């Protein structure tokens, strides 16, 4: 089933959609709903945020009023793909999880079509849907558990503890968990990085230093690409100083600027034997 690529599903889905009657579609942040729209025979579809493919499947199973222990896979798969298609039409991002489930459903659908081994004993035939049903039931159990937690939290919110008293303040400490260590450590590292950056910025290069730097570079290398020289500047201010120092050395005829071709690199050279200038 892993071989079924999401693309195949995407291409098969529109075909399904064409069979559908005209629809009014509205996207709401609620649970999805398909309901007759007033007295027209159009269907009104409200798309919701599904928590995941299992959620969508459970919803479809309820919507179609089918027995979860005997899911009509072909029908549910079609419905499922229609939904994915709708999501895509609405430019909702269809998460990978939904596509994986689509692939599994299609695979299941084809397995349901295979003739059963006539030699197999009735009890030994494993329903191909069994695994999916188990997952759905498991998922629904946890949804119910989440609901239980929700109501517990609601009751708990009606219970109040005393306000802070003096002795609490004697103990202005934070409870520490394992992830607090990591979080705090990362904060420290981030702070450290920030400080280093600040230091670099504060380290301002004077005009005299910049002139020295350029002079040394040109002398030791014979020529320096100005682009490289300017790129060494760590701040806008430094860049300005670098630019001014080039002008200054040109003015003092210590260096010459050479450009061998139009739009080519501009090189700073010592003014020596050749002495060409631009």
């Amino acid at each position, binding site marked *: 089933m892993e071989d079924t690529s999401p693309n195949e599903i995407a291409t098969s889905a529109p075909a399904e959609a064409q069979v559908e009657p005209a629809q009014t579609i509205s996207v709401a942040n609620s649970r999805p709903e398909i309901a007759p729209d007033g007295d027209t025979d159009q269907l009104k579809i409200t798309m919701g945020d599904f*928590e995941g493919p299992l959620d969508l499947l459970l919803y479809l199973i309820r919507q179609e009023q089918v027995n979860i222990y005997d899911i009509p896979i072909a029908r549910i798969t079609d419905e499922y793909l229609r939904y994915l298609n709708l999501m895509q039409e609405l430019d909702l991002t269809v998460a990978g*999880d939904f596509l994986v489930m689509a692939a599994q459903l299609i695979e299941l659908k084809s397995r349901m079509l295979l003739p059963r081994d006539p030699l197999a004993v009735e009890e030994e035939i494993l329903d191909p849907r069994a695994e999916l049903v188990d*997952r759905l039931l498991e998922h*629904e159990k946890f949804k119910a558990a989440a609901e*239980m*937690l*929700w109501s517990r939290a609601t009751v708990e*919110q009606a*219970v109040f503890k005393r306000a802070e008293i003096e002795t609490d303040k004697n103990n202005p400490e934070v409870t520490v968990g*394992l992830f607090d260590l990591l979080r705090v450590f990362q904060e420290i590292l981030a702070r450290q990085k920030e400080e280093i950056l600040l230091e670099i910025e504060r380290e301002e290069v004077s005009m005299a230093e910049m002139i020295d730097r350029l002079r040394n570079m040109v002398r030791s290398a014979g020529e320096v690409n100005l682009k490289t020289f300017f790129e060494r500047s760590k701040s806008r201010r430094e860049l300005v100083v670098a630019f001014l120092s080039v002008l200054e050395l040109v003015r003092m005829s210590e260096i010459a600027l050479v450009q061998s071709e139009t739009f080519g690199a501009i090189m700073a050279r010592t003014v020596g034997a050749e002495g060409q200038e631009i």
Partner: protein
Amino acid sequence: MSKAAKATEIEIETEVEVELQSPADEIEGVREIGDAELKAIAEAMIFVADEPVSAKTIADVIKVDRTAIEKALGDLVLEYDARNSGLQLREIAAGWQIATRPEHHEQIRAYLKSRPSAKLSLASLETLAVIAYKQPVTVPEILEIRGVQSPSAIKTLLDKRLIVAKGRKETVGRPMMYGTSKDFLIQFGLKDLSELPSIEDFQDLAGGSES
């Protein structure tokens, strides 16, 4: 002091088997404390505590037997109930706490001018439910059950201190395992995890009976 005299009379039964974990030399100053005083001290201690206090902690501090404290607390609970107090003494997160009764939440809220704080999203609650029932559990395992990626829900739960890391699983990639925290018990009003209804109890809701 008259109180000390009173205490001596009742003393004998409270002191039975002083089994303290603390070093022997600390038992030296075992004081004689009567039942009524024990109850009063336990109540005061729970009041000043900024989080639930266990009977053991109280017993260790006043240097009496833990069962004596447990009895005192049981009596206190009955007293609070009997006098229809606006407060309740209750066991939560393996400790004891004094809190208001839910019945009066409207007036309390009106006084505090507070609204119920925003609760968790459904996604976070479902992830929390999986963690609560399957702990210790790794992110891939949660994904398997929920059928959907839950990293941001897990981060939310960690930030809210409802879950904690519980070591690594000795499997490929050694993923971090998660479980619920003490704050989880407090925020959901649980004494301990065994108070959670069994996940199988939700079976009926999920599958419905075969009929």
